[in-house]
């Protein structure tokens, strides 16, 4: 039943979008956009209802949910695999289409909504023609469903228990938040794309209003992408016991690329508005932001790469490639129609003034995006061309992206007060001499306690200087000048990044680990602290078995555990016990050898809490900007 209703309504949504695409009357546009949003919300709820009713005649539910799955993870199963996540994707798209129309009703042309609906036709089309989350099951597998149909009103078979979601995805409530945040970030990048292409086409570039709208519509996706990436890092570190928060995994990379591009755009849009330069560059950035999100989905979903996050499924790869081609074509055609407009873009006169520094920012952010992109597709190229399988690991990114990010950190120091004309460096150092000296002294003090390397020394010195100068700036000017929201939110974001950099460099350079073989009721010491290990506790839940090992230092007791999921061939998942202080985490994961002997991996991870603080500051710095939508 649910299967048929879902398929029928997907068709209705698809047809409405096609009508919307050809429709010429503004009045109908608004109605159609609303109905479409309503249908997408309905489809979302319908699949949720199916998940909670355990309707295993729907293939997706039989394969990615189970009777024993706890309610929260049943809810989150909707985006636990490909077809369902496209449903969430469509819901986000229709929400943004509604929002865009509402905010820019008076200024947007027909073409904005036409391009929007075309993009939506593309994604809804996937659920209609290729693979639907509502597909009914027509052939059972041992557990779950092995064959399904995308036609409504078929004779369906029902699996008895359901296969359940991927164990990684039902280990912690963060799973319910991290992916939707990223989706909102990804899908939101459609708005600037629509603003740029639609407006440039209809006005033939008679004004810069497209960049203004594109910039404002980047705020929401930027914010959510930042939060989504941060939550992903937190999830992998705090919950999954992987010990790391960022692995340069291909799928992490493809979420980082749009972030880098969007960050670059947020800066260069400012320069276009005030100096009327970088017109063509901004257009390219907006296009790449959008295309990189589709590329990201392609990498994740097509199965071309092996990764933690990849779940491949049939033909979506080709489908997405086709989409990328189609949207690139639209982008290029509209761009080429505006060559005259782009040629009005001003050149840069003051390479050490405001526009110069913003150009450097763009150069390095874009280079970083380029390097991450190359690193992600390198293994693919090697395999196709030379039939060699290689892995591009951390060292590649450390060597190339590291210095680029360090340069960016250095540039932020000058962003505090940038003159339009060239900066006088001698005057600048004279003015700030006392603060430079005090931050250098502070850096020397910090570094005296650490194992040093040149990268560490440079990073600490630059971050400390940036933090000190930013604080002085807050202290002196915050009340003084008329509060300029975008300037001050930018400064707070930079402060967050400086703190984050300190944390990450401490983590990378100072952490170490050791292994301890130990029995129940014994103690071990690590980093001048004694830890006592109790006996393990076994718990049996409907969906998993958990073996917990309580460990205590003098003041608190924490658990490290191993989660073994039923109905799953996947590896067991270990969760860490984390004893946190401001400077370092004692991070313990366990391997069970037998009944009461264990092997503990004990890490001393520096700087994690500082990193989280920095990321938190950067993320929330953007909240005040959202208020700007109101006008």
């Amino acid at each position, binding site marked *: 039943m649910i299967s048929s209703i879902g398929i029928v309504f997907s068709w209705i949504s698809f047809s409405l979008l096609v009508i919307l695409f050809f429709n010429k009357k503004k009045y109908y546009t608004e109605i159609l956009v609303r109905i479409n949003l309503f249908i997408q919300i309905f489809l979302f709820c319908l699949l949720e209802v199916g998940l909670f009713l355990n309707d295993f005649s729907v293939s997706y539910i039989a394969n990615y949910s189970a009777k024993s799955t706890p309610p929260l993870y049943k809810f989150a199963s909707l985006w636990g695999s490909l077809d369902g996540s496209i449903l969430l994707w469509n819901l986000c798209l229709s929400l943004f289409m509604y929002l865009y129309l509402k905010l820019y009703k008076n200024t947007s042309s027909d073409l904005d909504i036409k391009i929007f609906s075309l993009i939506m036709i593309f994604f809804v089309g996937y659920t209609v023609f290729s693979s639907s989350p509502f597909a009914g099951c027509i052939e059972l597998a041992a557990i779950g469903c092995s064959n399904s149909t995308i036609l409504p009103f078929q004779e369906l078979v029902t699996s008895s228990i359901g296969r359940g979601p991927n164990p990684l995805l039902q280990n912690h409530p963060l799973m319910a938040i991290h992916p939707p945040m990223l989706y909102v970030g990804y899908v939101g990048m459609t708005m600037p794309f629509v603003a740029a292409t639609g407006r440039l086409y209809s006005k033939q570039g008679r004004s810069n209003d497209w960049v203004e709208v594109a910039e404002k519509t980047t705020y929401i996706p930027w914010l959510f992408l930042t939060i989504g990436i941060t939550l992903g890092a937190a999830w992998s570190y705090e919950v999954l016991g992987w*010990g790391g928060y960022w692995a340069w995994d291909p799928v992490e990379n493809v979420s980082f690329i749009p972030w880098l591009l969007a960050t670059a755009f947020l800066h260069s849009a400012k320069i276009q508005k005030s100096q009327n330069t*970088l017109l063509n560059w901004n257009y390219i950035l907006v296009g790449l932001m959008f295309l990189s999100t589709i590329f990201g989905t392609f990498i994740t979903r097509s199965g071309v790469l092996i*990764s933690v996050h990849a779940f491949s499924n049939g033909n979506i790869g080709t489908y997405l490639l086709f989409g990328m081609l189609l949207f690139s074509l639209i982008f290029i055609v509209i761009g080429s129609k505006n060559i005259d407009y782009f040629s009005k873009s001003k050149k840069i006169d003051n390479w050490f003034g405001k526009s110069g520094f913003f150009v450097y920012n763009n*150069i390095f952010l874009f280079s970083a995006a380029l390097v991450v992109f190359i690193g992600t597709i390198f293994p693919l190229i090697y395999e196709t061309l030379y039939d060699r399988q290689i892995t591009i*690991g951390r*060292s590649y990114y450390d060597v190339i992206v590291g210095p680029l990010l360090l340069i960016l950190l250095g540039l932020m120091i000058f962003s505090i007060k940038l003159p339009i004309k060239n900066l006088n460096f001698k005057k600048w150092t004279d003015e700030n001499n006392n603060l430079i000296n005090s931050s*250098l002294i502070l850096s020397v003090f910090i570094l*005296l306690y650490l194992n040093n390397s040149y990268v560490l020394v440079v990073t600490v010195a630059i971050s400390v200087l940036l933090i000190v100068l930013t604080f002085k700036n807050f202290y002196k000017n915050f009340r003084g000048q008329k509060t300029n929201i975008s300037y001050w939110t930018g400064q707070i974001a930079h402060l967050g990044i400086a703190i984050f950099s300190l944390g990450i460099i401490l983590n990378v350079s100072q952490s170490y680990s050791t292994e301890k073989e130990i029995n129940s009721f014994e103690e071990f010491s690590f980093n001048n602290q004694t830890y006592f290990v109790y006996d393990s506790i076994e718990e049996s839940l409907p969906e998993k078995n958990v073996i917990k090992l309580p460990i205590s230092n003098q003041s608190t007791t924490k658990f490290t555990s191993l989660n073994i999921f039923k109905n799953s061939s996947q590896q067991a998942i270990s969760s860490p016990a984390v004893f946190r202080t401001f400077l370092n985490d004692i991070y313990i*994961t366990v391997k069970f050898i037998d009944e009461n002997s264990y092997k503990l991996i004990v890490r001393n991870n520096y700087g994690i809490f500082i990193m989280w603080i920095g990321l938190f500051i950067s993320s929330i710095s953007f909240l005040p900007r959202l208020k700007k939508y109101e006008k």
Partner: protein
Amino acid sequence: MKNKFLTFVLLISLTALPSIFPDNESRYEQWSKSLLCPVCQGETVFDSPSEYADDMGAILLEQINNGLTDDEIYNFWVSRYGERIITNPINRNLEILLIPLLIISVFIFMFVRKLYAKK
């Protein structure tokens, strides 16, 4: 003037720090960070808490204690698992480093040239 001198002294002492308090990463740590655990979804032997990585780590430790050279260790792992087990291939395949650097340089050159105002 005094201040400038202080700045200079501080900069010198900062550059001296790495040689006074060096970072000693053990050979085992270096190697375990550059070996991929083949069953662990993209984690290195150093990062992974799995049994498999544990066994690999034990073999690696033995190799290092027996004083095998880097080449010997490299050949041992690559002959068994293929090239993809090495996560830092840039040491032996310099082009992996040079190609992106070349592409960035071309990008920066073109970008700046486009924006440079002729006087």
